[in-house]
């Protein structure tokens, strides 16, 4: 029981961490508070569902198609929708409000399109649904694969961000957007790239989620919310923070669902969030935001 809960918590937490890393890139670097983030995920989950049922592709192959798709889609959203808002806003606060409002509209557009195409039913598909025994606990192989994928993508991203010149550029914009142009960094291009990269991570998260969970056209909102809470917990723009906070949240949710009541997982999430706001609003690992 304990072992099963522990592994399930790691799996869920790994997915949250993956998704939250994308959001922390979008909010921390591109400075866009994207409320349609979960919709990007759910779109990717539906895409994986179609590829799986129509073409018989497995989710690993899906990732190769869907992740670049998520990148391009988010790139286009930034270039078409967010860029004019960035140009228009005088300060960070105004951009925050504008981006919240614009992406709130986008949320309803994407959700509406998904509802028209797929209806409001719960979707799922079966992939690698065979039990694997780990230390006496039976776990579905697809869940283990989800955890491995989430960690692999997360660690790769972290290494790219900290070990390459290209990652340093992105982090420079996160730390000091005003000073970055002084050393020859094109802030606009970097912001657009970070936003698109965040979208690619959301798409990866969506595919990973679709491997082991049911989803509907309207479940994006909850994912956005949890990702936002993880981002705040980890500290805005902090990748390692998002990774560890995601794992913590996944653990807490699974333990509440196993030992208390599955209906109270969201309440547990909010409980953590409330405690965090009262105790450490700058995040567990981060510096004060603004």
């Amino acid at each position, binding site marked *: 029981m304990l072992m099963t809960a522990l592994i399930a918590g790691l799996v869920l937490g790994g997915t949250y961490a993956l998704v939250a890393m994308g959001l922390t890139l979008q909010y921390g670097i591109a400075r866009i508070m994207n409320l349609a983030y979960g919709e990007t995920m759910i779109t990717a989950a539906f895409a994986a569902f179609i590829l799986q049922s129509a073409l018989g592709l497995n989710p690993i192959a899906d990732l190769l198609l869907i992740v670049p798709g998520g990148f391009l889609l988010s790139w286009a959203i930034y270039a078409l929708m967010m860029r004019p*808002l960035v140009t228009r806003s005088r300060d960070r*606060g105004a951009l925050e409000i504008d981006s919240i409002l614009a992406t709130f*509209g986008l949320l*309803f557009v994407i959700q*509406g399109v998904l509802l028209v195409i797929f209806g409001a039913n719960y979707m799922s598909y079966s992939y690698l649904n065979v039990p694997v025994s780990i230390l006496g606990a039976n776990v579905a192989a697809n869940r283990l694969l989800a955890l491995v994928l989430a960690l692999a993508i997360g660690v790769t991203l972290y290494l790219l961000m900290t070990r390459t010149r290209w990652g340093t550029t992105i982090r420079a914009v996160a730390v000091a957007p005003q000073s970055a142009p002084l050393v020859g960094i094109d802030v606009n291009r970097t912001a657009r790239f970070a936003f698109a990269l965040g979208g690619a991570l959301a798409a990866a998260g969506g595919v990973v989620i679709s491997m082991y969970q049911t989803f509907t056209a309207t479940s994006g*909102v909850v994912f956005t919310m949890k990702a936002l809470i993880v981002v705040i917990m980890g500290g805005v723009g902090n990748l390692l923070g998002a990774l560890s906070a995601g794992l913590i949240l996944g653990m807490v949710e699974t333990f509440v669902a196993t030992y208390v009541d599955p*209906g109270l997982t*969201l309440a547990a999430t909010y409980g953590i*969030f409330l405690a965090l706001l009262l105790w450490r609003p700058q995040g567990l690992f981060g510096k004060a935001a603004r």
Partner: protein
Amino acid sequence: MTMRLAFGFSLAAAALAALAFAPFYVGPYQVGLLIGLAGYVTLSSAWALFSGPTRYVSLATVAFFGIGAYTVAALNEILPYPLVLLAAAGVGLGIALIVGLSTLRLAGVYFVIFTFGLAELVRQLVTWYEVNVTGTLGRYIFMSFGPEEIYWQLLALMAATLFVSWCIGRSRLGLALKIIGDDEVVAAHCGIDIARTKLALFALSAVIITLVGAIQAPRWTYIEPGIVFNPTVSFLTLIMALLGGANRLWGPALGAVPLFLLFEWLSANFPDHYSIILGLLFIAIVFILPGGVLAFVERALAHSKRVTGNAERVREPGTAEARQ
């Protein structure tokens, strides 16, 4: 000025009286429309009361709306009606204080994130409570009065909301709010207690929204969490207030009336594409009318005045006007 004020008040009173007598002349369908209209004018005005001047985008409208409706559903057989309304307002106030106290001391984004999921949280908690403790998910509301009484109550609440909003706009509190919206640092240096001012306004706005939900609850007869915590309510309220202009007294009302009628028509004719059209409309408003219709019209008027004024006199370079 007092003449204008008296004129404005008598005009508003006459309009209110005309609206109050409307149910005697129209059919039941139109009374239903009027209820919806009064409800959304009140909701968007109450939303703008807090979010307009402070620019804290609240996405929690339906959380409070649903709390109001659900309180009525839970208590309508136990308590007399006025006490039920009072209880609903009390519950709304309590939750607003919890949310406000934990988020309004911080940057606006924390508030947005918290309110973003609040409706979903309350919906899941109510569902959990109903399933595990009371054992029934849906509830019935039977009231001894008809839709006309609901309409009059909403109309009274609407008038009260607009009046309170007008009073606040002229008071020290309103001035403090405007300064907070413009620059919090300046506001703090002026000796304004920022957190308390924001909290007071947020609580007031939340109580009004809760009351709208409570008053409208008998319209459903049957209530369950999925019905009263419908996120579209938050969305509609927001878009209405933004269209008209959240910083103007009549802005939200001006946005609510045409949009409510449009949404009625849309949901009857394009039920499947409803949320796509809504979302596109919303994005268009954010891009084209960032300050709302009223601000847009005022700017256009000011601009045409300046253009005609320029033809008559040569402007001196370096004045504040020229720099704009």
